[in-house]
């Protein structure tokens, strides 16, 4: 009976602590960062299917499912780009890329070879439309 009472009092606390620890472990703190993380001396190409297009500040992300050449399970890739405001001014919308779209992506790779990169461009396979993530030529006043 005593033992049962102990369990009743300790178990919820232990569960709460475990939940807190899990939340802390998964809490994302690195949303905004310098793009120096990506190796801009290289541009690589990736083909896959869009899983989702995350249209958020400070950075948007194209999540892509890629079938490895040697077979096996599809792999999730995250290709990161600039903010919705900058993309909007470059002619993008949040619907420019949709889940299920087959795409070819040009990207700056992560230096450790993991499945992520910084976006240079996306080409929609169905239409051939190429969306660029470089806006250096739009640096002037009174843009239309």
């Amino acid at each position, binding site marked *: 009976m005593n033992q049962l009472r102990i369990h009743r009092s300790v178990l919820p606390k232990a569960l709460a602590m475990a939940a807190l620890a899990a939340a802390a472990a*998964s*809490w*994302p*703190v*690195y*949303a*905004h*960062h*310098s*793009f*120096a*993380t*990506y*190796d801009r001396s290289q541009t690589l190409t990736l083909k896959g299917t869009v*899983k*989702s297009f*995350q249209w*958020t*500040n*400070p*950075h948007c*992300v194209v*999540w892509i499912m890629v079938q490895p050449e040697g077979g096996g399970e599809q792999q*999730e890739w*995250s290709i*990161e780009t*600039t*903010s*919705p*405001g*900058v993309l*909007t*001014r470059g002619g993008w919308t949040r619907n420019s890329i949709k889940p299920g779209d087959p795409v070819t992506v040009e990207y700056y790779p*992560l*230096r*450790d070879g*993991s*499945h*992520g990169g910084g976006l240079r461009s996306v080409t929609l396979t169905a239409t051939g439309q190429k969306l660029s993530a470089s806006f*250096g030529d739009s*640096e*002037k*006043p*009174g*843009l*239309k």
Partner: protein
Amino acid sequence: MKTYPHRAILLFACLAFAGLAAAENDITNRPPTLADWQALAKLPDLSGVWTPVISDQIAQERTNPPPWTPTVAKQIQRMYDEEKAGRPFPIIDHCFPTGMPSYMLITHNAFELLATPGRMTLLGEGDGNRLRRIYTDGRSHPADPDPSFHGHSIGHWEGKTLVVDTIALLPQVFLAVNEAVGVPNNGDMHIVERIHLLNPDTLADDLEITANKLLSTTWKTTRKYYRQRARKYDIVEGVCAQGSFIEALDKDGNSTFKPIKFLNNVPVGSDSK
């Protein structure tokens, strides 16, 4: 009888300080009049959406670096080395506001300037809390302002130039030269800006930054911005923390945000539990 003159002085100083603070709090902001709006219309029009000239930011970083003290210069060099190696120092990762003066120096996002009687307001894009209030109603800095990310700013016009004085910045706020290189100001930073039009749609901000804990002398530098009138350049809402989540449905089918998995500062998985 023993006297304590220093205690009397201290008591007087405390009372005077309390009186000053109380006097500040007793002031009422008067409603603007037609004359206030008319006076505003005669000043240079700085209102609208401004996009930073990023290529010039980069050029300035190379040609006019801050006069770092020798100790800080070593930290800065280490950060440049880390950036080159692909391990950028996380200056902005926490989603706090970039803060002043980095707001004007390194941002890649637009800001919108609102000109109203007695005040200029800068609304930044990218992080919803990038907000500067510059009081132009003739007030002084408070006697004991709360430190903040953007500090306390007062402005006045000298001809066609808006002169802005900013103090009371949190010591943790970075003086940054790019998104991966900079150091906290560590207190007592003072910024004077001279904001003026170079031509109808180009704005210059001439900054003079005094930060005795970091710099051997006052650093003078300029940043430029281009005005955009096209409606597609209107500022969009930006909530930095939102970028750490992806849209999802919870077990009851309600729309929710689910944390993204990050590794070494970059998003690596949208299915983190």
